[in-house]
């Protein structure tokens, strides 16, 4: 068996009286698409926030490529190669689409203006941003310098996904990337996910859309009440059983028995 690229054991996260993670485990294999499904509030977002350094878990360990890590900020995780689209998108509302796409990775002008005066290459960035959005099928964005807060819900999500996809790295984590997207745009995101995997990069996909999950996932991590209930193979389990598991209508041993 290959070693997991990213592994977590016994993660606990409590917020005052609320328990978000209750000794959750997690394994991501190299080159796979791992889907994470679960009820609303099951702790999926909390899990990936812990993994990507956005929150510090109260207990538990995280291992990346065999080395135990503990991030004190998302930047460290990002530098370790973990790229993440958060459910809350992490966009700056008042800034333009371009600014948001290149946040922290801006392109400079060639020549001395760029090297010595740090001048940004606005044109090149705009062109790149427009291309990436078109790749996702977001043709309704009329003005690439529009502030993100003026975009429609789906356009915003598209910008966040395009950003993660454009700067591919070791692991890409997508928290409900298609929730607000239209039919066409969602399809493009699924294509993109498969594309990323075909380049060898593993993807974690959180989604409530069962057909999508069963279509692209190599393995499905079912999360319930703050912990990993089980991991199933989409080829050997039915959608109804997966849904039954995640909503507590069935227990994992019952599936094995069935």
């Amino acid at each position, binding site marked *: 068996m290959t070693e997991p690229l990213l592994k977590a054991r016994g993660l606990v996260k*409590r*917020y*005052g*009286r609320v*328990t978000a993670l*209750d000794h959750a485990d997690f394994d991501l294999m190299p080159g796979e698409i791992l889907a994470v499904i679960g009820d609303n*509030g099951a702790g999926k977002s909390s899990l990936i926030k812990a993994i990507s350094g956005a929150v510090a878990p109260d207990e538990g360990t995280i291992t990346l490529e065999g080395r135990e890590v503990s991030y004190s900020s998302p930047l460290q995780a990002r530098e370790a190669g973990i790229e993440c689209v958060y459910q809350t998108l992490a966009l700056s509302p008042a800034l333009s689409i371009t600014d948001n796409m290149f946040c922290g990775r801006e392109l400079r002008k060639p020549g001395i203006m760029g090297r010595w005066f740090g001048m940004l290459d606005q044109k090149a960035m705009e062109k790149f941003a427009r291309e990436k959005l078109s790749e996702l099928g977001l043709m309704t964005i009329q003005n690439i310098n529009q502030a993100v807060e003026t975009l429609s819900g789906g356009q915003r999500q598209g910008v966040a996904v395009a950003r993660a996809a454009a700067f591919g790295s070791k692991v890409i984590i997508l928290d409900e990337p298609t929730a607000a997207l239209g039919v066409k745009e969602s399809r493009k995101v699924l294509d993109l996910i498969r594309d990323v995997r075909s380049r060898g990069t593993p993807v974690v996909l959180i989604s409530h859309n*069962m*057909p999508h999950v*069963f279509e692209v996932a190599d393995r499905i991590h079912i999360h319930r*009440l*703050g912990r990993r209930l089980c991991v199933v193979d989409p*080829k*050997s*389990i*039915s*959608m*109804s*059983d*997966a*849904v*039954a598991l995640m*909503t*507590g*209508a*069935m227990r994992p041993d019952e599936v094995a028995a069935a």
Partner: protein
Amino acid sequence: MSETPKSGGNDYEAQLAKSSVAVAEFDHAPRGLIGTVQHVLHANPTFVPVIVLVASIAVFGVIAGERFFSPFNLSLIMQQVSIIGILAAAQTLIILTAGIDLSVAAIMVLMSVISGKLAVQFGVPAPLAILVSFAGGIAAGYLNGWLVTKIKLPPFIATLGTWNVFFALNLWLSGAQSIRGADIDTTAPLLKFFGNTIQIGDARLTYGTLLMIAIFVALWYVLNKTAWGRHVYMIGDDKEAAELAGIRTDRTLRQVYMLAGFICALAAWASIGRVGSISPQSFYEGNLESITAVVIGGISLFGGRGSIMGALFGALIVGVFQSGLRLAGVDVLWQVFAIGWLIIIAVAIDQWIRKVSA
């Protein structure tokens, strides 16, 4: 694939009928003493300024000796903070709506001058003069609220402007002359009503102190137990969301400013009792001091978060520092220095406790 669904997509939902219907619950690891304290603090962030207050009283008790600790001195501190405390109550209302009111102290001084002029110099009966000052306070608040809601000025700018206006009116009306305590005593002693004291053992509580406490309790009730109070928080939290959710945000905002103006007028009355005379130059730094009390009390300047009681404790913390330093014999210059550090340290402790308990 053995069992892919057969039609319109939703077959796999058949199992839903059986899904669990219990509300999620988790065991909690037993907490130690510190854990419990942290938990209580997290659930009740108002306790944090209380702890800072108690700690600073303890520290000054040690540094400045038993004089500081006497009931007499502690009640004196209450007296000294009463006016800034009342202003801080008004300021809290505004800050909870994500505003800021630079004019509170100016409204107060203007209203004390108006009631004094009327009662002492024009012979208007004192109750009427006080009523006029109440009306004036409400009108001043209305002007601020109108500028903020109708003209859509940022509260900082609106009240910066009205601060200048009220300040000029105050100087014009009073000619910068104070009204003597003795004259008030003979013509309109009612103006000094809040200067009366109740003696309890060694402690001397002025009516002004009681007024301050009463205002805080009343506002605490209104903000936490009535619909209007919840709306104030909602507006401060996210005005647009509150509007979409069906709150009459502008009307409520204007009411908030008017209420704050009224409280400033009450402060004006109380300040006559406290100062003993009416001096148009008093409380020049009152705006900043009231804001300081509010922020030390853990109320967010970005609105919608914090409890009004925090402002009371914030005012008391500042009062304790000032009195303690004085009693410890610190030079005025180094008092300023120390107050600077103590503001920083008080709020740093607050932040630290919140973080630890998060």
